[in-house]
């Protein structure tokens, strides 16, 4: 079962096969979770969205049409839609997301570990980037997170988002410029 392609698995899921669903879940839980974590910035949110995403995958398996696209972009499209709708609802409740409010799970520092300083530096950089990412509009953040996950090509992201590849590359470039401006300002503030 674990060697079956996605298309065969989703057909079985559509017939109510829980084992096929488990294989599909195990195949995608880690990369989808990583994307959701970067889109939402909080582990608790990402966990909730992961559950919602795969619940929707199970319930919508019957409606998946192989002629209209592959399973992988379809799953990511469901994940994106979940994140978008939840983020929209969240913003409705709290209109402004402050950088100070961003929760980051820092790894526990181990005293005396030789690479601690380097690790913390790397962690701070990732933290600053995560915070800067959260300030980007959703449509810019999505393309950066999805492509940098190395799970989807631009063609597959186009399939998942319904946007042309040229538009996606242009958005990526705009996001990069915005991140550069934000991070440059952050480093300047720190000096």
């Amino acid at each position, binding site marked *: 079962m674990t060697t079956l392609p996605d298309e065969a698995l989703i057909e079985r899921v559509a017939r109510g096969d829980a084992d096929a669903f488990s294989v599909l879940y195990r195949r995608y839980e880690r990369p989808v979770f990583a994307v959701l974590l970067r889109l939402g910035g909080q582990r608790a949110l990402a*966990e909730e969205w992961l559950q919602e995403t795969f619940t929707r995958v199970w319930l919508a398996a019957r409606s998946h049409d192989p002629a209209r696209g592959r399973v992988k972009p379809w799953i990511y499209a469901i994940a994106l839609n979940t994140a978008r709708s939840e983020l929209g609802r969240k913003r409705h409740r709290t209109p402004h997301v402050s950088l100070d409010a961003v929760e980051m799970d820092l790894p526990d520092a181990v005293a005396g570990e030789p690479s601690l300083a380097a690790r913390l530096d790397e962690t701070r950089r990732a933290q600053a980037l995560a915070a800067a990412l959260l300030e980007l509009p959703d449509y810019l953040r999505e393309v950066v997170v999805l492509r940098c996950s190395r799970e989807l090509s631009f063609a597959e992201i186009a399939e998942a988002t319904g946007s042309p590849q040229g538009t996606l590359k242009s958005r990526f470039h705009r996001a990069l410029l915005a991140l550069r401006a934000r991070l440059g300002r952050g480093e300047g503030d720190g000096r």
Partner: protein
Amino acid sequence: MTHPSPGALLELHFGEAPGDEREAFEAHLRGCRECASFVQELGRIERALAGGPDDAPPRDGLERVLARVAAVRPARGRRAEWAVALVPSALALLAGAWAIRAGGERLTTLGLVTGASLGPVSGELLGLSLAAFGLVVVGALITLALAPVLILESHGRS
């Protein structure tokens, strides 16, 4: 100097550039600090976004999803089962309507009931009673025939 477009540099960085273009871009990068710096920055952002130990999904994620699906499915399943159950009910109703229409007349024709001994509407009433009984029997038979299918379907979904 003509620089590759940002889109072309993105393709190069993510390994999506076609083979012939790739070589030309790489040659350009070796002599262009501006484009090389763009690609290096891409690499830095990608590394910063790379997964770490905290990226592990919840261990009980699958169980939680299955529990959520089980909670959502019965409501949807019940709707489908009601829709399926409507078919035998509709058939039974049609059979009943036919029996009501023809029952009394048929009984009188066969001489099983005489209008004189039981009154002017007795044949009609007896026909209605038999039709109602027939309706119950037909409904029960159809439900019995469909029950294993419905049960299997329900188990398959849960």
